[in-house]
Each structure stands twice: as C-alpha cells, then as structure tokens.
C-alpha cells in the first residue's frame, strides 16, 4: 500500500521538474526554420499553452485510467512505445543478472574460503578492475576482439527470443558480458564479506567438527546464512540495471527503455519521460517487495 503514495510523489515531482526545465517540445517539433506562429500553433495543439495546474489535472486524470498519453513527436501511445522497448531491456537485465550471479557468487565464496591467499587477492583485484573500467570502454574492447577481429559475434542489434534462441544469444552475449563486469565485481565483494562474517560463527566450526565436506559447509550452511545481504544487493543491482543500461544499449545499439527515455529527455518528449519514470519507480517498488519476500524464504525467523 505504501507504493501508491510513493508513486504519487514521483508523479508530481517528475511532472513539475519537466515543466519547469528549459526547453520547448513545440519548438523542437516545428523544426529549425519554423516561425514563432508555427510554434505557437503546435504548442496550443499539444495543450502546453494551458496553465500548469490544468495540465497536471488532465495528465493525472489520464493516468488514473491507465493512459500514459502519447508521444509529442511520434503521436504513438506511450504504453505502446514502452511495450516495444521493454523486451530488450528486460532481456539484457535478466541475462546480465543471471550471468553475474552465476559467476560472482562462486567467486565470492572462493575468495572468502581462501581469505588472504592468492585466489582471494586475484578475485579482489578483478573486482577492482570491474568497478574501474567504464562500460563503454569495455564494450568497445569486446566488440573489437569478438566482432571485428574474430568475427564471432555481431557488432550491434537485438534479436527477440521469438526469432530463435541462437540469434537471441548471439546478439545478447557481448552486451551481457559488458554490463555484467561491474555487477560481478559488486556481487563478488558482497558475497565475500557476508561469507567471511558467517564463516567465523560457532555453527560453522561445529559443521566442520561433524566431518561435513567443505562444499557442504560452504553452500548449505554458510551461504544460506550469508544470503540476506547478498540477496539485497542483487535486488538493488537489478533495479539499477533496469534504469542504468542506457550506455550499454547505446554502444550495442539495443532499442531498450534506457535509450527511449534518454532520447525523450533530449527531445523534451514529456509524456514518454513521465511514463517511463513512473514505470521505473513501480519496478523499484516491486523489486523491494520481492526482496522482502525472499528474506522470509531464506530466514524463517523473519516474519512481517
């Protein structure tokens, strides 16, 4: 229920921020050689000449009916535009999440298990590299080697799953690997820290004393108890991915929601910006809810 006032505040904030920022979508729509009269006519047609409170009430009325409005430029419904662009973003985010978790969690476990050793230091060094290399630099490097030199993968573009698993994987691989570096770094570090805290506990010593195999101690006993902070960070990471894939989408020419909103900001396409930000805030609320549910599953002591 707290989601509704949160999204209400976001709606008001984004509406005001856009209307009070410099720029005029009517002037952009009319083009460079337009006259003031052309622009005024377009502004009136868009309803942008009306007082702000009236514009806000009109927009909120539409919103409450599930109508996010139409793009100022293409005139297409914002819901349709988001619908066209959501699959690439979700695909990229989910694949990146899956890849990052599959690589990072074992890395973090190994680093904690071999704390202070060369494996630990190597993994932490890779983690620093993952944080430090900008996404676009890494993207260009991977494109150079795997697309241009080795001709193994395409440079750009997105193929939906409906076009086949191979085309989908072919085009998602490089952007997924590019984007995952920073999240592998983040998840590995958090996993290592959480595991180190748990590995010092009495019950771990007891598990060893009982003669359990190391992998059973690490996974079944230690990881399970270290999972809460790891799941939190993975959830937040996923939320950040949804909103932060725009650089990857640009480098690999993936037509996702990130590029949709950046293009809309540059063009002052108010309905798209408002619609996408509301969508993102809704996604964040849902992800937080999912994290809270996951806590309950991971730790039976937690009850709401």
């Amino acid at each position, binding site marked *: 229920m707290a989601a509704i006032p949160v999204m209400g505040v976001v709606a008001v904030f984004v509406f005001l921020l856009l209307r009070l920022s*410099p*720029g*005029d979508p009517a*002037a*952009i*729509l*009319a*083009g*460079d*050689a*337009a*006259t*003031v*009269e*052309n*622009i005024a*006519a*377009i502004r*009136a*047609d868009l309803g942008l000449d009306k007082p702000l409170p009236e514009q806000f009430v009109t927009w909120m009325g539409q919103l409450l009916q599930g109508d996010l409005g139409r*793009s100022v*430029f*293409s*005139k*297409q419904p914002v819901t349709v*535009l988001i619908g*066209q*662009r959501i699959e690439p973003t979700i695909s990229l985010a989910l694949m990146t999440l899956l890849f990052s978790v599959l690589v990072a969690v074992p890395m973090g476990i190994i680093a904690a298990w071999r704390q202070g050793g060369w494996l630990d230091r190597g993994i932490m060094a890779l983690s620093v590299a993952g944080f430090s290399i900008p996404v676009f630099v890494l993207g*260009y490097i991977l*494109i150079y080697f795997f*697309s*241009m030199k080795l*001709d193994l993968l*395409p*440079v*750009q*573009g997105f193929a939906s799953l409906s076009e086949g698993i191979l085309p989908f994987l072919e085009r998602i691989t490089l952007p997924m690997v590019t984007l995952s570096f920073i999240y592998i770094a983040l998840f590995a570090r958090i996993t290592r820290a959480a595991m180190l805290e748990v590995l010092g506990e009495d019950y771990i010593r007891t598990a060893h004393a009982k003669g359990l195999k190391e992998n059973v101690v690490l996974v079944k006993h230690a990881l399970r108890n270290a999972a809460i902070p790891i799941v939190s960070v993975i959830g937040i990471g996923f939320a950040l991915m949804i909103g932060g894939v725009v650089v990857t989408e*640009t*480098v*690999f*020419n993936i*037509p996702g929601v990130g*590029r*949709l909103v950046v*293009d809309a900001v*540059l*063009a*002052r396409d108010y309905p798209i910006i408002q619609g996408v930000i509301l969508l993102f805030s809704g996604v964040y609320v849902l992800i937080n809810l999912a994290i809270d549910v996951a806590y309950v599953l991971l730790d039976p002591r937690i009850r709401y």
Partner: protein
Amino acid sequence: MKKSTLRHLGCFASILALTAAFGITTINDAAAQDKKVLRFIPHSGLRITDPIITTAFMSRNHGYMIYDTLFGVDEKMQPQPQMVEKYDVSGDKLTYTFTLRDGLKFHDGAPVTTTDVIASLQRWGKNDAMGQKLIAYTKEMKEVDAKTFQIILKEPYGLVIDSLAKPSSNVPFIMPKKMADTPANQNVPDEIGSGPYRMVKAEFQPGVKVVYEKNPDYKPRSEPPSYMAGGKVVKVDRVEWITMSDAQTAMNALIKGEVDIWEQPSFDLLPALKKEKDIEIRNLQPLGMNYMLRMNWLQPPLDNVKVRQAILHAVNQEDYLAAQVGDPDYYKVCPAMFGCATPLNTAEGAPKPSIETAKKLLKESGYKGEKIVIMAPTDLGSIAQLPLVSGPVLRSIGMNVDVQSMDWQTLVGRRAKMDPVDQGGWHIFHTAWGTADMMNPIANAGVKGLGKEGGFFGWTEDPVIEKLRDDYARETDPEKQKQIAAAVQKRAYEMVLYVPLGEYFQPSAVRKNVKGTLPSPAVVLWNIEKE
C-alpha cells in the same frame, strides 16, 4: 576412453555437423535475400512522420520515400515534371494548367486525383515560406477534372513551378485528401503516399527503426534519375533505416557489413573509414550545408546596425570552417547567401574580413561594453564549435561576450523568446541549413524582413528587403531574377540580416558493393542495388 564417452562425443559431433550444414544453407539463403535489403544509418531517428508539420530533415527524407511530388529539381536545379505529365502557362501568365500522369496510385490503391493534389498544396501552403507566398498570390486552385487542375493567380508570380519543385523542407508532397485535410499544426494520421516505397507500419519503432518495402504499383518516369527528377526506379525489395547514436558502433557495423550506408559519419572518423578496403566515401549531397550566425535585432546593442556590421567584418569564415569541419576537402568559403552551387551564386555585398574595420565600426556605433549573450549548444556536434569561435572573435574587437552552454533543446526553446536578455532572452545563436533550404530569396528564411510578424528568430525587420523579395517573386525572367537576388543579398549584408559562416559537405560512407547511389539535395534511396 569409455564407450559411453565415445557415444556422447559422437552424438555431439553429429549435432555440430548438422548445425553447421544447416547454418551454411541458411547463410546462403540469407545472403541471397540480403542483396535485396538495403540497410541505412540515417543521421537521426525518425519520430515525426509528417513532413509538412516540421522542417526536420528526417521527416523530409521519409517523405521522399513514401510520397511523390508534382515537380522535382534536376542536377542543374531546374524544375522538371514528376507526377505532372504536362503543363502550360497562359499568355497573361495568370493561369497554370497541370495534367497528371496516368497510373498514379496511392498505397491503398486509390488513384491520385486533383482533389488530393489541391488539398495537399493548400496544407503545405500553410506552413512553408514558399508555399505561403504562392498561396498569397493565388486567386484560386481549381479542379478541371480528376487529372487536370489549374492555379489561377491574382497577378503574375515568377515562382509557381519553382515552388512546386521545392526540394527541401517543407517539400510539397502529395497526400490523399483525407490526410491533407488534417490541420497543418497536427500530425497526419497515416502514411499513405504514392511514392516509390511503402512504409511497413508494423515494424516502425520511432527513433529506432523504419522499414520500407518497394511499392509494386509505382510507375517511375522513363528519364534517367537526376536529383529529385527523373525515374525513381527501386531495385531492392526492402530498406531498413537503423538509428545508431554511437558513431563508433555505426562505423564498426558498416565495416562488418551489418549495414550498407552511413549517411553522416563524423568528420574525425573519415580517415579511418577511407582505409577500409570495402568502404567508399561518397559525396551524396553536393549542394552542401551552410553555417550561419544569427543575431537578435530586438535586443540592444544588436538593434544597432553598426554593431552588427562590426561583427560581420570581424568574421573570417575560414576560422569557423577549420574549427568545425577540419578537413579543407569538405568545406569552402562561400559568401553567397543562396548557395555557391546554385544559379543565384553571387558575392554581391560580402565584405572582406577585417578586424581593424570591425573595431572602427564598433567604436562608431557607440558600443558601451554591453554584454552579448551567445547560446552554445554542447550536444549538437555538427555546430558545437561555432559559438566557441565567435566568443574570441567578438572579444578580439572589444566586445563583452558571455558564451552560455546549454543543450540544443534548451536553445531551441530560448531562441523563440523575444524577452530581454536578463529575462531569458538571447543575442546570438548559430545554426546550419541545407543549401536547398536557402537557394532563393523566398525559400531563405534568413533574408526575411518581416520582423515579429512571421520572421525567423532574430526578427529582422526591413521593408526594403521585403520589397525586393516581392519583386523577386513577381519577376518571371530568370536573368532579372538573378539581378534582384543579388540586390537582396547586398541589402542583407548592408543590414546584416545574418552572417554566413561558410559551406561544408557531409559525405556518406558506403560499402563498395552498393551501386547506384545518387547525388541529390536530400537523401534518395532509389536506383540503388547491391552486388
């Protein structure tokens, strides 16, 4: 090795072999189909599909794909009939009678009739400068029958055919009446034209991808193609416009063959592209583009002609072109306000740059050090350097300059304001126009002297130049038109309606197996085939 392991390996190898065989077959089929698909990276994403509501070049280029025009200019910039079969002009030059070609059909199968033509011209005439002038001189546009119509003038007007042949924004594209009845400040609701391609609406993603397919009902003219005139013969089945905002990615995609043409590679990447064995650099828009510096006549001290003249004399086009373009192969100094590659090319009135003269004029003007605000768009690479040159140039003659950085959209919103500078107004901005958009005194919005009522931003007001523009419009003799155009330019320089900053040419990068690309004032994708 265990038997089970061998079995697994054998099975795996079989799967690999089958996949490879399937892959090879698929690749061969795909390669054959690929020859019929042209992939093109445009300079920006298409969002506004109505080429009448906006002057944006993307919308204009989209218009040329799906619509057709009554006339088109050839490479000598002479209007030639396109949808028109024949036309004649009455002896008193007041009645123009046009007959359409046989077989013209819209994409929904309906024939093109004069009802559609007149409705389209009237809608175009509400927004376009040449269209507005034509309508102002027109007494009536009359349907004689389904294929013949007349434009009946109030008095002789020298630009009737030139107006109908206008190559750049806004182009008088012909639409069905049901679309052309849309008010001129609202987008048309559909994409039905009679042009050489049809838009595949199901695959349209605004700002991302546009797909066109060959229009099987299109009847091209028999003449060879020449700019916007002649036969528009389509030799591919499908064209995909794929927006790529990252220049490095676009270059890599072109090198790898994932796309065929990159409309506007950035100048700094051209040397790398030239080294690629499969890529050619072609100048597909030989008319070029023109940079300009535009001043706000409403705001002191730029309401003082001597201050404006001081700025004019301080400007050396070479400085701007070197900063913005870099390679002299792609620019030239051009004082002609109607383009150096057009019949109206002249240097009439253009002064030689001189800092000393500029300083003298500034002193004579009584300039007292008032701040001059120059708007500098940081996100538009095609003109971002120009204000950075203007700042030091104006300071060098003793002006107090404030170069304010902003994004292009902020600039576009701000330049429409007539407010004083301390309330959000401005003094100077820079822009670039295609030569095709400024090739005569009527099309060139920069030489309008209408002031606040219908003038371009900057609101230059000059009754003398407006009289000269009217004289040009009325004159039907091409030689006399040239003389009047020269007079317009001379007056424009005297009063400093704007400062031309030179001409540049934006080449395209094309894969060598793509043949038949045509030079033209706007992007044209007919006549192209892939080997």
